[in-house]
């Protein structure tokens, strides 16, 4: 296959979407927490927890949707825990994030072990997967139909979350308060806003998205949970969010850049390029872009 053929292949488009999905959901979660002034460094751990919770609950209940809900709830609980640690106990925000990652890495292994007697993976559990969605009518449009239709519901969910979160940030009282609290908590408090409550809600929402991103890995990409299966995606999501300059649409754009880079890295393997160097791409790109952007004077746009 030539380079050009790869780029124009509709399957490449589908790959980009799949690679994007967990990164986008997680980065949007980080975005919400970041705008509220409580940067969520624990995203990796939240994803991992969501991945496990989704598999276990869907296996126990036989319902993928209940599994997804459990993943979301589990992520949200960790968000609440983090908010309590930071605003209740007064722990350092960054440390709280690192602690969440550490605890989740150990905790999910333990959880898997207690649930299945196995520390490695949950393959023996009959857990659910999130279905793919064939969009009626759309799929029949020649050309773009096959491109747009037939992806995982969570992929559509992630894409839908971009305008929704953008709308939430820009147009709802909650979003407005998040933006106010994130910029100047003292000033926000003068109009009677509870800073702690807003930050709690933001971290819970962030965790819920993290849980969902994790569920995509264990219930979308594959149909089982395996130790450390998030493989650093929570950290890439952090870089993506920062590249996204604090907006949902910017985050989408940054995710697309990273996902294309990853997709190329995957498809280019057939050309015999060393895969270790390919793996560096999603980590080097954010550094370069971040540096260029901050160097040009970091100004966060208002609104949105």
């Amino acid at each position, binding site marked *: 296959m030539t380079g050009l053929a790869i780029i124009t292949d509709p399957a490449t488009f589908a790959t980009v979407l799949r690679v994007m999905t967990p990164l986008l959901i997680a980065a949007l979660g980080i975005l919400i927490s970041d705008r509220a002034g409580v940067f969520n460094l624990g995203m990796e751990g939240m994803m991992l927890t969501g991945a496990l919770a989704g598999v276990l609950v869907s296996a126990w209940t036989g319902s993928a949707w209940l599994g997804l809900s459990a993943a979301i709830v589990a992520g949200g609980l960790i968000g609440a825990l983090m908010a309590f*640690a930071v605003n*209740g*106990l*007064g*722990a*350092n925000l*960054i*440390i*709280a994030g*690192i*602690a*969440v990652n*550490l*605890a989740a*890495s*150990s*905790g999910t*292994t*333990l959880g898997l*072990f207690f649930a299945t007697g196995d*520390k490695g993976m949950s393959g023996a559990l009959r857990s659910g997967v999130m279905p793919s969605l064939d969009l009626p009518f759309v799929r029949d449009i020649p050309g773009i139909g096959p491109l747009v239709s037939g992806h995982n519901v969570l992929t559509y969910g992630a894409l839908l979350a971009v305008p929704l979160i953008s709308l939430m940030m820009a147009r709802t009282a909650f979003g407005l308060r998040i933006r106010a609290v994130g910029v100047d908590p003292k000033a926000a408090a003068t109009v009677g806003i509870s800073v702690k409550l807003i930050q709690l809600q933001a971290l819970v929402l962030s965790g819920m998205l993290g849980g969902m991103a994790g569920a995509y890995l264990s219930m979308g990409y594959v149909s089982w949970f395996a130790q450390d299966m998030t493989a*650093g995606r929570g*950290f*890439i999501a*952090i*870089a993506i969010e*920062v590249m996204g300059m604090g907006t949902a649409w910017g985050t989408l754009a940054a995710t697309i850049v990273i996902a294309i880079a990853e997709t190329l890295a995957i498809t280019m393997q057939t050309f015999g390029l*060393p895969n*270790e*160097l390919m*793996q*560096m791409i999603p*980590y*080097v790109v*954010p*550094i370069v872009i*971040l*540096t260029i952007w*901050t*160097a040009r004077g*970091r100004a966060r746009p208002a609104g949105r």
Partner: protein
Amino acid sequence: MNRALLAGLVRLAITLAVIAAVILAVLIPFALPHDQPGAVVAAFLLGPLSSVRHLGNVAEYATPIAFTGLAATVVFRSGLFNLGIESGVFLGGLAATAAALLLPSFGPFTPLVAIIVGAVVGSISCVIPGELRLRWDAPEMVTSLVLNFAILYAGVFFLNYYLRDPAAGSLMSYRIPADARLDRLLSGTRLNSGAIVALAACLTVGIWLYFTRSGLNLRIVGQGPAFAAHLGLPSRRIIMQAQLVGGLIAGMAGAIQVLGLYPRFSWTQLPGLGWTGIIIAILARENPFYVVPAALFLGYLQVGGDFLARDIGIPSEVVGLVTAAIMLAVTASAIFQHPAVLRLIRRIRRVEAAQ
């Protein structure tokens, strides 16, 4: 200095009490279902003290994390939240291995040369985010976090293409020549001369921070940037100096870890010592003199955790949970900055002063 000492002891006592409470809180749910819950706690707390060899293991664990704790201390003292220490360790280990394998032997100085190479190369991981921050205002927390992974993969590439032993069954370097490896101190353990270097490094950095002019200036720049500006100190240079020193220590940690403990370089993941270093730095309240006891304490927890896993059959992942809970608890200002605690400390000082 009696009152300061007493007040410090009170703080220490509160810290230890909090840690003990946290350990018990996490451990008890795992111990209770066990036939002898007491034995679980005993194995955890007394196991590491049960023989010289196990004490040696404690020191062995403490060695690399004392280095990384020290590196984190120096870097954080500059006021930057640079997480590059994690990959600094990796890079230091890799570079030291490369030096031992690719450079000619320097006789008895071979380990020294390898460690220096490791330290210098390892420092890159802290210097780059610092430079990006100072020059272009790129947020060092994020750039260093992501750079850690970029460095990892670049390192694995280098390992695979330049150091790999094709006869070895997994991805590892050629055997590190015997003359590059560090001497062992205690038979039956791998406690090596690196432990002495760690101790010396903590003392040296402690002396630097508290007994030299440039250390004082670093503490001023990190803790009072506006004051540093008022004094006209060259803040940027001082901050970069701290990133460099932190990076050198991290690289040295990796070099010593590899030359001391492993026959070959075989890391294909980040070793996690940098994260532990952050915990140490916090536990030690960013004081190099407290880094050694803090590292020994975490080493003790680690060995205790190994005892749980080996002798009691409690999964060793529990230690990860304990560590996470300790991290949260010891940074919780609601506990340590609680008005009651502050009042208590103030009263102790007053009472002492009155005597």
